[in-house]
């Protein structure tokens, strides 16, 4: 009998009834961790000697979970999947992880990410490529690749993630699970290794919407160490889910969802968008009104560049603390600046260095207004546009990506211009700090695909409710990856 492939509510019930102990669950999670490590290379660290927790009224008590390796964990290796921190053992724990520990949650491993979260493929971590549990020739997407793979493979019911562009919500779609990032500041970022501070969100990868609510309930809370965090003590996400969505208004964006916008569409894209329209029908059957909206293509086309400019600018500054002097493997050199250069040159992957160059370039005095400030202006325009939509609609519903998980071979990092916006629109959720959730909505080429629901800031409960109702009307709740032969 296995438990780690069940929902949090089910596991909790089994624990309370005494059908299983926290110790049994840990044993199961660790065994599966090693299996999945073998198959998918999802973990930086597996904590084989972890101790069980007392089972209490808390839903999370005694239940194993995974931590993305860009969360600082006291006494446990925390690498950000980067060679620059390959031996770094922090002496403090991220607030979100502390909050989970207070509920009795048991961390059993640290999961692989794209180096410092700066990638969307799950292929750039210092421990190697993470493969998709549905099909090992495909990627998980990133950056929360290890977390997505592990949850999808049934190692445990949930893992933490972080999301700067779509790093929770894209891998969730590619792995057929749920990925939720709440409103900016609901979960403290203290102890999360920063990528781009104004876009970074903590969040959760789970296999059901209710589990996502339970986990974020456990992670969230105002924190005196994060000035951008806010008091959400009156918001009880899990308890607020009632599935009542009749009369809710949704919209989708024609420019993103209409197959006619893609003259060279391949079969997968066609199937993906057709599947999305079926999901829209389901929404209507649930009593929701769904409207097609139109947004200026010029504005939409600017999104990926705006993201690159802002995220790279903030990243180059955020990662200037990585010098090898105070932490990280100190490099050789006859002077401090050579030591620093050697450390950074050796430690960072080429992809990251490319982003640093872009970040520095757009912040240079002579370029700053043209690139960085313009990007901030367009970010504001996009957010204003979405807030305008939220005046009319409870949420925006859109397909995630242009189809199922991409092949690891061949297509690496080469963006197809035609589908760029479809691949990148989730970044809007980071621009505005909007609550945003991805849930599985079917299969294309026998692989899972996802749909995303995004609402206005602080309206997390509404977003979760819509996602829950939709999830309940489809058959993909708590699905475990079945390897495609």
């Amino acid at each position: 009998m296995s438990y780690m492939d069940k929902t949090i509510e089910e596991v909790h019930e089994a624990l309370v009834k005494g059908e299983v102990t926290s110790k049994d669950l840990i044993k199961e999670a660790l065994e599966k961790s090693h299996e999945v490590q073998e198959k998918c290379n999802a973990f930086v660290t597996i904590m084989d000697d972890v101790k069980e927790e007392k089972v209490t009224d808390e839903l999370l008590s005694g239940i194993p979970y995974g931590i993305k390796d860009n969360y600082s964990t006291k006494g446990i290796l925390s690498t950000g999947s980067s060679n620059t921190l390959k031996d770094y053992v922090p002496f403090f724990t991220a607030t979100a992880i502390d909050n989970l520990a207070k509920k009795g949650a048991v961390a059993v491993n640290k999961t692989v990410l794209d180096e410092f979260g700066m990638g969307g493929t799950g292929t750039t971590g210092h421990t190697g490529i993470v493969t998709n549990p549905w099909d090992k020739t495909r990627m998980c997407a990133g950056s929360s690749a290890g977390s997505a793979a592990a949850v999808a493979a049934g190692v445990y019911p949930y893992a933490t993630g972080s999301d700067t562009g779509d790093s929770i919500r894209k891998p969730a779609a590619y792995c057929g699970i749920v990925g939720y990032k709440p409103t900016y500041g609901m979960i403290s970022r203290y102890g999360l290794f920063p990528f781009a501070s104004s876009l970074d969100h903590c969040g959760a990868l789970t296999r059901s919407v209710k589990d996502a609510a339970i986990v974020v309930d456990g992670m969230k809370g105002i924190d005196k160490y994060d000035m951008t965090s806010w008091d959400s003590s009156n918001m009880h996400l899990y308890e607020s889910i009632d599935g009542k969505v009749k009369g809710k208004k949704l919209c989708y964006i024609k420019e993103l969802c209409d197959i006619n916008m893609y003259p060279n569409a391949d079969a997968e894209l066609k199937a993906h968008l057709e599947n999305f329209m079926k999901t829209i029908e389901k929404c209507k059957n649930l009593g929701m009104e769904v409207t097609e909206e139109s947004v200026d293509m010029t504005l939409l086309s600017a999104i990926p560049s705006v993201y690159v400019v802002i995220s790279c600018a903030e990243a180059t500054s955020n990662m200037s603390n990585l010098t090898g002097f105070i932490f990280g493997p100190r490099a050789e050199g006859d002077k401090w600046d050579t030591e620093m250069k050697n450390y950074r040159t050796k430690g960072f992957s080429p992809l990251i260095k490319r982003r640093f160059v872009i970040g520095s370039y757009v912040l240079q005095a002579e370029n700053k207004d043209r690139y960085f400030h313009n990007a901030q202006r367009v970010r504001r325009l996009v957010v204003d546009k979405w807030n305008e939509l939220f005046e009319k609609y409870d949420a925006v519903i859109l397909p995630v990506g242009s189809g199922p998980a991409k092949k690891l071979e061949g297509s690496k990092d080469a963006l197809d211009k035609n589908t760029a916006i479809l691949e990148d629109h989730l970044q809007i959720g980071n621009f505005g700090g909007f609550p945003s959730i991805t849930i599985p909505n079917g299969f294309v080429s026998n692989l899972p695909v996802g749909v995303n629901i995004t609402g206005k800031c602080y309206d997390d409960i509404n977003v979760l409710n819509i996602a829950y109702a939709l999830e309940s009307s489809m058959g993909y709740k708590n699905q475990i990856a079945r390897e495609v032969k």
Partner: protein
Amino acid sequence: MGYKVLIGLEMHCEISNTKTKVFSSAINGYSDKANTNIRPVDMAFPGTLPVVNKEAVRLSLMASMILGCTQPEYLYFERKNYYYPDLPKGFQITQETKPAPIGSYGKLEYEVNGEKKSVRINNLHLEEDAASSDHYASGSRINYNRAGVPLLELVTEPDFRSADEAVAFLETMRSIYQYADISEADSKKGQVRCDVNVSIMEDNLDENDPKNWGTKIEIKNVNSFGGVRDAINYEIQRQIDLKEDGKYDEMPQQTRRWDEESGTTIYMRSKVDAIDYKYFVEPNIPKFKISKEWLEEIRKSIPRLAFERKEQYINEYGVSEYDATILVKEKPVADFFEKTISLGANPKSASNWITTNLLGNLNKMELTIDEAKLTPEHLAELIKMVEDKEISSQQAKGVFTESLETGKSPHDIAAEKGLKQITDEGEIVKITNEVLDENPDVIKQYKNGKTNMVNYLVGQVMKKTGGKANPSLARDVMAKEIEKR
């Protein structure tokens, strides 16, 4: 040909009167044992975030008001990005002129050699200090106690015309920081550091037209007011020499460094090599609305400054202008004076004791007034004893010196030494008659017109009493008794 000199200052002053650092909860105690006042954020451990110290903001706003600056509607901070081992994050959190810093465009009156002058303040901003480093032949040592200490940087317009003016302004600022309880502003503790810019122009040109200004030379890291004076005077002469030699026009705009040992300025870099700090708004600190109510509260709480106290000492207490100037020069001295008065001492006597006895002695003992063993309570007691004629002013001097050396109270000292003055008239009449009985010849001389012989007789009374007789009483009694003979 004569020259005009244009001098501008950047004065950095640590705010020493907050409990904790400006973006960290570590104690603001730079001079404590090295590397003991540190939180993870001060060493930029991954995932740490800045949290603004409201008290540091309050004190900065107060300084902004005193300087006649405009306060911003919203508080923002910016990152100044550069690499240096004493800057763990790789950026300093500071404020630039856009968005508006804590103070913009003010004006301050100050006095130089009795003449009133005024200087325009370009801006005042709040930032964090870097760590301090000591360099040795074998390597360098870094003390992170200073990393994150709040620092106020004040930038003036080039309104000073001489080193004297610049130094007089700095002294005024030091007094303001001390009196407003913002900082000890002690350059010996490294709390005050200046950058100076100097340019010269021909005397007959209009200084209000920037086109006529000469090449601006910036001198970095001048760490004492004496150094500021010397650096300015050296630089003026250096530039005049270049003019006279016809080499001035070849001199590029540049940054130089003040070398205290050689008393010269040394070339660092030209403007062409100026560092691009890639400023951008710190995303981890949400913009903060500074309310009118708070500003009003701060305005009302500005302590009395030196010039206000000086006016009060002259007008209310009748202290001479000269003495008042001495009393307010250092705040601890003025506080000592006011404490003494508050204990009931006569202000003029207190002023006399402090300016003529206390300060000179402390100077010899190389002590500050706060370190003195003699307290305001002691001084007030001593003044009262003289007023009540318990001891003579001659005796008081001895008591004062002993109290200063031992910290014993004047009453105790007087009692120990049996110094109680004889103020009982009957007793003095008795002793006076004894003296007269013993000196019939002197009485004869007196009667024959040698009236000044009375001094000798009074002297004999003093001798007989071991100096304890009240001198003026002894004189009065003697005058009466001798007439009776």
